[in-house]
């Protein structure tokens, strides 16, 4: 009799937890489809379109140095960058960090040093821009390339991962932040912050801005598996501003369910890097909390 009631309580607990978790079917049917119209997807997929909206709404974004919207514009774009240091070249419609080049110092021999230390010649840059406008990195017939000032991450992030950029992913529902995490690249992930590529996820408490959990390759960890840097109990600088930037970015586009990626620049503070109209569900594992529960806590369920 007691066993039976115990089993019943367990089952109820399990069903309850399942109800608070969001799977792909539920995400698509109850979050993505009702809140994100398909015709608005380009606003999330095309980083330049998103930046235009953000600029108009006063959402801080990394400064755009140049836009290269065709083969004809390639020489002019390179010309304008000669002598300049610390910028990033991106395809407008790239996904998963493909086609992004991080450029460091301008060198006296007329080339740049890349983030990994190798050299980038002017011809190399020309070729890369041409590839982007040809759509090589976006599986399209054509694309636009743009050049951004390189973000100098806040020391807290630089301490987590020196060679690349950590960002804060904030999931918002109708402009209300619901859940957040820091995505940290690892050597294993090839410098990319995507969790399924081996990146590290650190859960951030929405109310306090403190990190309370970290997950790497599905396993809960307390330190960075490579650098050994402690990951828990960190306090994110200017957390209320970070949330505010995410709110404003969400409100600037007609997409209701979003993943907003924010970086914290040493000088400029929080900047919106990009938005995603179908943010992944791994954030639940990182936080140890189902999205359903998080939405209820945020009052948007």
């Amino acid at each position, binding site marked *: 009799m007691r066993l039976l009631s115990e089993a019943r309580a367990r089952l109820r607990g399990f069903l309850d937890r399942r109800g608070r*978790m969001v799977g*792909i*079917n539920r995400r698509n049917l109850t979050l993505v489809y009702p809140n994100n119209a398909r015709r608005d997807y380009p606003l999330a997929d095309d980083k330049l379109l998103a930046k235009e909206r953000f600029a108009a709404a006063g959402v801080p974004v990394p400064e755009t140095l140049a836009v290269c919207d065709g083969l004809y514009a390639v020489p002019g774009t390179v010309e304008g960058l000669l002598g300049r240091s610390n910028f990033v070249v991106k395809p407008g419609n790239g*996904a998963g960090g493909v086609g992004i080049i991080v450029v460091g110092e301008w060198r006296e021999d007329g080339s740049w040093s890349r983030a990994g230390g190798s050299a980038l010649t002017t011809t190399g840059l020309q070729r890369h821009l041409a590839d982007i406008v040809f759509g090589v990195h976006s599986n399209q017939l054509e694309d636009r390339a743009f050049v951004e000032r390189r973000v100098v991450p806040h020391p807290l992030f630089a301490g987590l991962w020196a060679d690349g950029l950590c960002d804060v992913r904030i999931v918002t529902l109708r402009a209300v932040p619901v859940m957040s995490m820091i995505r940290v690249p690892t050597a294993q992930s090839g410098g990319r912050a995507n969790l399924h590529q081996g990146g590290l996820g650190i859960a951030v408490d929405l109310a306090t801005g403190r990190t309370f959990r970290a997950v790497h390759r*599905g396993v809960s960890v307390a330190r960075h598996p490579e650098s050994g840097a402690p990951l828990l109990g960190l306090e994110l600088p200017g957390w209320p501003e970070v949330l505010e930037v995410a709110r404003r970015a969400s409100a600037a586009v007609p997409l209701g369910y979003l993943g907003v990626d924010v970086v914290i620049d040493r000088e400029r503070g929080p900047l919106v890097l990009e938005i995603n109209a179908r943010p992944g569900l791994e954030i639940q*594992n990182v936080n*140890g909390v*189902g999205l359903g529960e998080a939405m209820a806590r945020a009052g948007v369920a």
Partner: protein
Amino acid sequence: MRLSDSRRVALAIALLVAVPLGLIAYKLRALGYSLVDVLPVTQYEVAYVLQFDGHGGDVRIRTFLPSNDAHQVVSEERDVSSGLHLSQQVQGPNRVATWAGAEVPDRAEIRHSFKVLSHRMVFAIPPELAVPPSYAPSVATQLRPEKEIQVDAPEVRAALRRIGGDTGTVLERLRRIYDATSALAPRPFKGTTDAVSALRLGEGSCNGKSRLFVALARAAGIPARLVGGLILAGGPKKTSHQWVEAYVAGHWVPFCPTNHHFAELPQHYLTLYRGDETIFRHTAEINFDYRFESRAVLVPSPKAKASFTVFNVWGLFERLHLPFTLLRTILMLPVGALVVVLFRNVIGMPTFGTFLPALLAAAAGGTGAGWGVLVVLLVVGAVAVTRWGLQRLELLHSPTLAILLAGVVFALLVIAMVAERFGARSLANATFFPIAVLAICAERFYLSLTEHGGRMAGKELAGTLAVMLAAYVVMNSLALQVLLIGFPEVLFLVVAANVFLGRWVGVRLSEYLRFRGLLFRGGGP
């Protein structure tokens, strides 16, 4: 989600279920459709293969061909013989075939093939039936002794008395004769054994036991005759088989004392002739050799086809001279797609696109599932190799895909060459695969490889193969195919299932694993 929304969905599903179920019920009740006949039946593909050396002279070969009766229906008879003329005549109950030719060379061959649909026949002999005092003259001939059926031999008469076969009802006598003959020790086939020899030896092959049965039955006053034929399936063989028929109340009732069938003719028996005959007679000194080939295949029941009368797509396709395979492929595709949806949205198995596994399964319907798997691996291998070769050139997307297609075509050509070179003819099956399906497969694999990397592409490949196999099993079910042909409205049920799955927000099976920490421990991993 608004209530009216889910109501609308529920209403749509209810309609999509009710309409086809109503139609099915109407067809079964009012139009005489039969659900039982949806099940496929076994058809045997039989061939006589006769080989001989004519030495440039005259050759005559005589044998028996099967006739249609209540037990068996023969169709699609084809004769391929090297320069011999086939003539047929009916002799009593038998269809006699004679091949004749002049100046027949050595190593001549006759291949005579046909298809057989047969039923198991079971007879009930009335227990009270007494042996009648006389028979019609045509039947009475089957009471007389023959050269190797020594009805009047004293030993036969004595044996009949000993087993009690000379008294009682027809059923009692036949039962005793059957028991006595089927109890004889078996003996491998060694030419002809006559009735008396079988009795003396206490053993017999099929023809010895059958002759003794006929002799005893005739002695007991029941007309009986030998039946010659084949036991079908089980590959090529030289042995024919003999059993008997006894005349009971106006019917010739079959018995096989060798394989223990009492008043029963199994489905896989093929009757060729009746009477004590020799299956082959031929010109002497021609080094004659023969074999019987038979193969069992499942085919749609002709009864099902005959009962489908309304909106008969089967007949429509026949009138348009479109093959049956095309019809079933078309009808089964939505079913295959539903299988894919189940695997993707309920199990959470990644595949290359939604239709590709179903298309691959449909294509594999012509060659077999194994070939499907092999061809997909071949295409994937060709894509991987070609991509590796192209990587340094950094080409644009579309030209790359065009080159990949060329790579796939080359791989198919190489397979065909290998097939010919090493005599593995069946390998050439790979080239039967629709190239359009393979092209989509190549593109999907390439995209996945480029966008998600080797790991994910490998996962999707494994998923695609698994789902393809599942879809293959479902789509190649002959019973399901005939069901859809007779009741195309079943497709509405498929649509209903998809509407339901389209609104299903449940957790995918794979997500129980992915979020096991959240689900089972109440926290993350």
